[in-house]
């Protein structure tokens, strides 16, 4: 198998790598379809996106997260470095804990979002959607830190869904049920360290497993052996996308344009404009975007990211959003028919002052029925709560489903 190796002289010829789980993914991939996620081959759907989605909600689904971009930050100034980089107060993420954050440029516009894993005192792993090495290196000026990309050194699997905890226990990870949300711990796995974090992108009970790529296939095998009677299934990116929209999680490149990719002014978003003001900590000292965000706070934001509950059952993909008197209000960024909420739902970016919870809007939906295009102006309203937020997500120890 081709392995990512940037030391190899002709490494650039490999535009995309098979994941360390590739052989197993290949066995499960009945549709024989592959997509690309970052540097790796990924599976959009193994056999049926909807059924994979239901595995994630009613049993458990296994999703390969190796392609996520990973960086390790270490050195005496690791914490001050992280504080200046991220908008949130990283000092509150204790060793063994994980935190979600965004990071901004000097204009207070979001470059990317991701998770910070405080691996041990002063050593952090940042997982992100986009490649960040250039920006992270730029940020090292004046800090005694080492930043290393370790995307290819760690294989990752997300195990998401109500039976996930039980499967891990059956696999022999005694005590995994004690993990609280955003906690992590380590197990011995065939002589290797297996890191398990109670994190995920589905808004449900779930875990992420991190292992040396050489042990990837073995981990997959053990997981599926243990999960056989608990409905475990391989899950593709289409199912994951459904799960994350229900959970109200945003995706870089979908719900916001990463600031480093923007060409035109006004196309990027600040944390406030993504509903992530809670991640901005002004009292921790300087961080990238602080001055601009303070100014935005005083002046007011331009946009608001909202959740829409739309009448009817037609997914409102790529739709315009209007006020009830048909004035432009914004656009939908993600949309789906939610099987769990039994509703047509969407995330939308609206121009201020629109987007107060309860606001009544119209969504212009185009859909095709037997090759004929139809258009509907569907009434919609702004809702405050996410569409999927089960108590089991927070429960510790989780129930034995």
């Amino acid at each position, binding site marked *: 198998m081709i392995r990512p190796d940037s030391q190899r002289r002709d490494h650039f010829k490999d535009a995309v790598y098979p994941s360390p789980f590739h052989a197993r993914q290949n066995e499960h991939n009945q549709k024989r379809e592959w997509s690309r996620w970052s540097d790796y081959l990924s599976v959009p759907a193994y056999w049926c996106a909807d059924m994979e989605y239901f595995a994630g909600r009613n049993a458990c689904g296994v999703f390969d997260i190796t392609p996520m971009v990973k960086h390790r930050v270490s050195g005496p*100034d690791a914490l*001050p*470095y992280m504080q*200046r*980089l991220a908008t949130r107060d990283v000092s509150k993420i204790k060793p063994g804990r994980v935190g979600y954050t965004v990071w901004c*440029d*000097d204009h207070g516009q979001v470059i990317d979002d991701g998770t910070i894993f405080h691996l041990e005192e002063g050593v952090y792993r940042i997982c992100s959607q986009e490649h960040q090495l250039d*920006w992270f290196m*730029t*940020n090292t*000026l*004046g*800090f005694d830190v080492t930043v290393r990309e370790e995307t290819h050194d760690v294989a990752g699997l997300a195990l998401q869904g109500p039976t996930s905890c039980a499967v891990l226990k059956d696999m022999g990870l005694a005590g995994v049920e004690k993990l609280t949300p955003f906690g992590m711990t380590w197990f011995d796995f065939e002589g290797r360290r297996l890191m398990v974090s109670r994190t995920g992108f589905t808004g449900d009970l779930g875990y992420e497993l991190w292992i040396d790529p050489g042990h990837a296939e073995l981990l997959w095998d053990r997981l599926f052996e243990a999960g056989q009677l608990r409905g475990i299934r391989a899950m593709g990116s289409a199912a994951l996308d459904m799960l994350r929209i229900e959970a109200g999680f945003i995706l870089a490149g979908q719900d916001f344009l990463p600031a480093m990719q923007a060409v035109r002014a006004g196309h990027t978003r600040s944390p406030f404009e993504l509903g992530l003001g809670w991640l901005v900590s002004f009292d921790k*000292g*300087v*961080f*990238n*975007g*602080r*001055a601009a965000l303070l100014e935005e706070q005083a002046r007011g934001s331009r946009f608001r990211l909202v959740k829409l509950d739309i009448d009817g059952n037609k997914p409102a993909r790529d739709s315009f959003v209007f006020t009830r008197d048909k004035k432009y209000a914004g656009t939908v960024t993600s949309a789906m028919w939610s099987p769990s909420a039994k509703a047509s739902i969407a995330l939308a970016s609206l121009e201020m002052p629109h987007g107060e919870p309860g606001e009544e809007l119209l969504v212009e939906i185009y859909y095709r029925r037997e090759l004929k295009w139809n258009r509907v102006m569907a009434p919609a309203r702004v809702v405050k709560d996410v569409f999927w937020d089960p108590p089991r997500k927070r429960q510790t120890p989780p129930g034995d489903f």
Partner: protein
Amino acid sequence: MSQMDSVIVVGAGHNGLVCAAYLARAGRKVTVLEAAGQVGGMAATREFAPGFKASCAHLLYLLDQDIRKELALDAHGLSLAANGMKTIALDAGGEHLTIGPDRVTGPGVSEADQAGYREYRRFMAKFAAVIGKLHNQLPPRITQERGDLLALGQLALKIRLLGRDDMREFLRIAGINIYDVLQENFDNPLLKGALSLDAVLGTNSGPRSNNSVFTALHRLSGNNGGGKAGVLALPAGGLGTVTEALAAAARKAGAEIRTGCPVERILLDGGRVAGVRLAGGEELRAATVVSNADPRTTILDLLGARHVEAGFAKRISNFRSRGNAAKLHLALDALPDFRGLSAAQLGERLVIAPTLEYVERAFNHSKYGEYSTMPVAEIVIPTVRDPSLAPSGKHVLSAVVQFAPRTLKSGWNEGKGAFTGVIFDLLAAYAPDIREKTLATELLTPEDLEREFRVTGGHWHHGELALDQFLMMRPAPKSAQYRMPVDGLWLCGAGTHPGGGVMGCAGRNAARAVLGA
């Protein structure tokens, strides 16, 4: 007086002193902290050999005459030993050209060159005045705010008021290189060579480098009270007299000036400036710190890059500030015999820049980390006009020698001796007895200038003077109005608008900005 009114000025270069004087006059409690044992920085007169004195900056051509009047510098000891000095373009065969503000004299100067020179001076002076008008204002920012839009509008209007033909010419040449412009206007190779030197002195560029016309214009842009553009003067006692007078004016206004106090750190409290810590550990509190140090030293070393946002830190670290000029001081037993020059002519400004191609070739070496094997030089023998700088009957030769890159491939430890030899060979081609007349030699490479005067890259202007580092881009967008992104921290040195040369405008503009805040 409360700590809120206290201002610490880091560095007693001319801009720091100007800034301190204006702040003190406005009632602020000002303390100037200078690392060296004397004020003045690169514009201090220092003894480089027993009884022989020189200042690194050796000619005065940009000093703002309003500042001179407002701070009563003449009453504080400033007097000129020479004013309106001519430039003599040296020729190895003794066929020198004498270049005055209105005409060129010497062998081989054609009628066309003479006419070309008058026209060149006319438009260069006129264009320089457009730039000069900007020196005393905060650079407009690119915002939608009234003041900024108005300032930009005024600039556009000034350019439009040049008239159709001159406006077109201004826009055509302001960004291009001096080589092309001189080729268009002149035939005489020596004249072209000498004029091109004005475009590259103190910069990291050759005549063919882009916007070298701009640096030539900048040299002519000073407010000299209605005199001819770029008039060269020699203060009695060297440039140190200017900075001593500034220091006296600042003290009279109430500023305290402490020398031998290197600032090690700018202190913060709750994200805003709280004072400074000196190398000895002493801490001084003040809510306002104005730094005369260059932008990189100020932000990256004294403050620390971590205290500003990453994009800004990157811009500051990318501020181009690679010095490429060395400074030579010779203690002379007697006046050297420059072939074809009278003793009185040695009191003018002498330049070695025989042709445009010669100057460009001299620059080539520096691109690859080497010094010029055939350098160019601007030579002043100040003691012809001002005997106070040397023991009776003896002389000082002060020369800017280019090109000498900040980082020499072989290292300056090794290169300095060899480069000194190169310079003596160069001088000997014009003044064969230079070696016999020399009693002592001091050569300051950019590395020496950086160490001695704490200027990044040893760069005269604290950073390349070029269009991309001028006005609202100096030192970086959004920080060009002297205010740094940390509350209470300001810049006032040559790394800010309108740049270097002993002018003083940056210091005064910074003081106005601080007072207006």
